[in-house]
């Protein structure tokens, strides 16, 4: 391991420690928090801050250590940042859907299920098209 400036090594090491700490805290939150909607909160820190710091450490290491710009890491970070909210939204939708259909395996958590939204609307989970569904319903 010759060549890399000590500053680059220190910066990469600090970013790795930061990223691993966030991953650890996120997974600890997944174990510790009482209901699914709260548990969704923990791993998002791991996937944005934790992975972001580790991928940045990799960029710093390969750039300052070997003088090579690697953009794969930024691509991974971009992909994770785009997809993490989508998968979290899908998981929350499944949770609401199963609460609504009364699945026995789905505990609502200490605060109970969320209150119904005002008006005739319902939470936006996937369901069969019915009277009043905009768009793809023949009777519209």
């Amino acid at each position, binding site marked *: 391991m010759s060549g890399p400036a000590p500053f680059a090594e220190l910066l990469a090491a600090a970013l790795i420690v930061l990223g691993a700490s966030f*991953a650890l805290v996120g*997974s600890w939150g997944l174990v510790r928090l009482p209901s699914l909607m709260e548990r969704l909160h923990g791993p998002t820190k791991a996937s944005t801050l934790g992975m972001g710091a580790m991928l940045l450490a990799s960029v710093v290491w390969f750039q300052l250590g070997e003088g090579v710009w690697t953009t794969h890491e930024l691509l991974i970070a971009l992909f994770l940042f785009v997809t993490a909210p989508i998968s979290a939204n899908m*998981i929350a939708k499944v949770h609401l859907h199963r609460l609504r259909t009364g699945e026995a395996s789905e505990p609502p958590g200490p605060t109970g299920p969320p209150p119904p939204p005002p008006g005739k609307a319902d939470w936006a989970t996937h369901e069969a098209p019915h009277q009043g569904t905009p768009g793809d319903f023949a009777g519209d």
Partner: protein
Amino acid sequence: MTLSVLEGALAFGFAGLGLALAMNLWRLVKGPGVTDRILALDTMVINVIGLIVLAGIAGDSGTAFEAALLLAMVGFVGTVAYAKFLLRGDIIE
């Protein structure tokens, strides 16, 4: 033999991510809902991506990142497929 700063940080990172994976596995086994299991699998994929990135730094290899990118894509598609299956009873309609 003394560890350099980066080697110490890498050891800490591997240990932390391994512990995080063990906690995710506990949540995967414990449940209680099927959504908790999907969330645990999603988090496991995230942590494994971190492990691959750290392995790429430790091994000074650029090929680890293709694996990490592929795993990120496959993990996302897997999570969405689980969620779609539970919502609709089908994945591709």
